[in-house]
């Protein structure tokens, strides 16, 4: 992995590097979109803390919040980010292979 790739992925790993956030993400991903009040009811931390954790996950692009009436409904937002990432990873590997072959080609001929 290149430095740039690690740096790009850093906010995601940082967001996931917390037990409460990981549980919130797993919950949103397994039981679907949910509100802060219902999420905090099932989490042993304050509603304020849950809000903060959700915002961290949101900044990392892992979840998205939509206003519904007076509440904010949070949902997992994997598709765009993950699809794009997997697509680039695949092409990135093809380039690694091609450059590896270029290197060997040059070693053979020089």
């Amino acid at each position: 992995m290149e430095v740039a790739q690690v740096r790009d992925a850093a906010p995601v790993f940082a967001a996931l590097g917390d037990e409460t956030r990981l549980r919130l993400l797993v919950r949103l991903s397994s039981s679907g979109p949910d509100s802060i009040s219902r999420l905090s009811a099932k989490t042993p931390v304050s509603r304020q803390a849950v809000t903060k954790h959700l915002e961290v996950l949101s900044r990392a692009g892992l979840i998205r919040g939509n206003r519904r009436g007076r509440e904010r409904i949070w949902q997992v937002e994997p598709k765009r980010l993950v699809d794009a990432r997997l697509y680039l990873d695949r092409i990135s590997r093809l380039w690694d292979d091609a450059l590896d072959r270029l290197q060997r080609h040059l070693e053979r001929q020089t």
Partner: protein
Amino acid sequence: MKSTTDRIEKKILLRAPKSRVWRALTNSDEFGTWFRVKLASGFAAGKTVTGKVTYPGYEHLTFSVDVERMDAERLFSFRWHPYAVDPKIDYSREPATLVEFRLEEAAEGTMLTVVESGFDRIPAGRRDEAFRMNSQGWAVQMENVQRHVTG
């Protein structure tokens, strides 16, 4: 700021002089050897170059690039359609990505930088294809996390 999903950048130190690397990149026979494609003609700025892919398992595919720049021993660039692996799809009307090979002299040879950019304009459907082909999709990853947390 450019989106982080728009480009791929690779750097590799090649133990050969710039002139040698330039030839390996721009001589169509040499390019074909390591890139695994049999080109019908040589590269020239402004020209479309086509060929047959020789990569095992992908021999049914056509290779096609529009050469943009050829600044001797400095920059070689072309536009193409990345990951164009379905022969039934006409990729020619979709946005292309730009591939740039930059050469710089280094202490022990040549530093080659490859940048492919413009991925954000690639239709989402194409990305979904790559997503489906990848068995380690999001669902699987989430199951892993779930097992880890609840296990």
